[in-house]
């Protein structure tokens, strides 16, 4: 390693950065989607089956927000698709999401 010398690995290191950031974002965005799916399934099964025997006491009145959940799901999926198509973070444009 030559300190302060010209970087010998120049061709490629931007690729590393791109690949790294894209991977981090793709993985974590997919996790967002998975968590939302999990939450949706929980909510669904909670409705269809008997309530949990020992529900956690809600720390304060929490308004039920089923609709935004679905929208965020759509949003996250769109984002993930955009990512998957290879565009960097800066190029994401989400056109279709509106708050109803």
């Amino acid at each position, binding site marked *: *390693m*030559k*300190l*302060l*010398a*010209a*970087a*010998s*690995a*120049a061709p*490629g*290191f*931007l690729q*590393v*950065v791109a*690949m*790294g*950031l894209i*991977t*981090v*974002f*793709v*993985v*974590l*965005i*997919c*996790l*967002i989607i*998975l*968590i*939302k799916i*999990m*939450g949706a399934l*929980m909510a669904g099964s*909670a409705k269809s089956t008997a309530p*949990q025997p020992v529900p*956690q006491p*809600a*720390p*304060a009145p*929490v308004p039920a*927000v089923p609709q*935004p959940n679905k929208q*965020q799901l759509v*949003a*996250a999926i769109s984002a993930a698709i955009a990512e998957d198509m290879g565009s960097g973070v800066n190029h994401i444009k*989400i056109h279709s*999401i509106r*708050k109803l």
Partner: protein
Amino acid sequence: MEAIQNFLESTGFAVIANEPLDLVMLAISCVLLYLAIVKKFEPLLLLPIAFGMLLTNLPGAGMYHADYFAGGVINWEELGTGHGGLLDYLYLGVKLGIYPCLIFIGVGAGTDFAPLIANPKTLLLGAAAQLGIFVTYIGANLLGFTPAESGSIGIIGGADGPTAIYTTATLAPHLLGPIAVAAYSYMALVPVIQPPIMKLLTTKEERRIKMKQLRPVSKTEKILFPIMVTIFVSFMLPSAAPLVGCLMLGNLMRESGVVERLNKTVQNELMNIVTIFLGISVGATATAKNFLNLQTLAILAMGVVAFGMGSAGGVLLAKLMNVFSKEKVNPLIGSAGVSAVPMAARVSQVVGQKEDPSNFLLMHAMGPNVAGVIGSAVAAGVLLALFG
């Protein structure tokens, strides 16, 4: 008389004449002890690291032999014939990647992912805060470090000690000393480094945004979460499996509620024992030859840049999210995405309360905070996959 002659020549005073830089290292280790004890810089790790550094630089003591691990190859012949010192044998747990994984089991057992599950989009902040890792990677490359070294330096920006040590032990073990010192020192300095950046990048109005209360998270979700994350992340990035898998094993022990005695042990005794062994043996790699050079200064400088850029990345992405989303996010929680759990989240809370004492950001900041742990493990996985 000859015996006395030999004896005198074996004292540290005789040895030090040939290795005067050891004295500088002893002074540095005392400074680090001061930071750990008086300034309380992450003392749980910095104290063992500093003492390990002290022990390794005692001339002639032979508690650690850098040459038994030269070139990344373990000299089993010397170790197996009993010529190794205590720190050589303890260092094997670092070199073979065992300690960071065990510590991550304890970290997972101590982490509550509920704020993240309740507000999963904070994962984006945990992703954005890894910006520092990759910006620093570029910088290190430009300064002439090899790609593997650059990756290890960048990972300082992950603000996560075990991840940094796990990655560096594989990619650039000769840099373990400075990288560990930088990582833990800057984690301790989060309350100093982050607030100016946070204020610079946000308006007064943004800092006063109140976020809506997090939904309660069911026990089932908390149990499914670690299993899901382990499987999914490992599929996407197999090289991240050891860190993420161990983190989530610990978390499953915590959330399952059926192995309370194991949960308690991994968070306490096992973690304490491994922390000591890890600390003193990582410190032991900081010999004068490995530490006293321009590289170390460059690493320390780039480390603070990595922290700053990571914090900025989190804040800026939070602002970007507010452009597209009606449900506003207080951008002060973005900086918590660097991890440094739970200190960075506390910094978000403190800076937020300075603008509006009625604003409680702590729980909201815990989302990106724990997301940052996953984020840096993933970033480490990328670096390990490319250069490991």
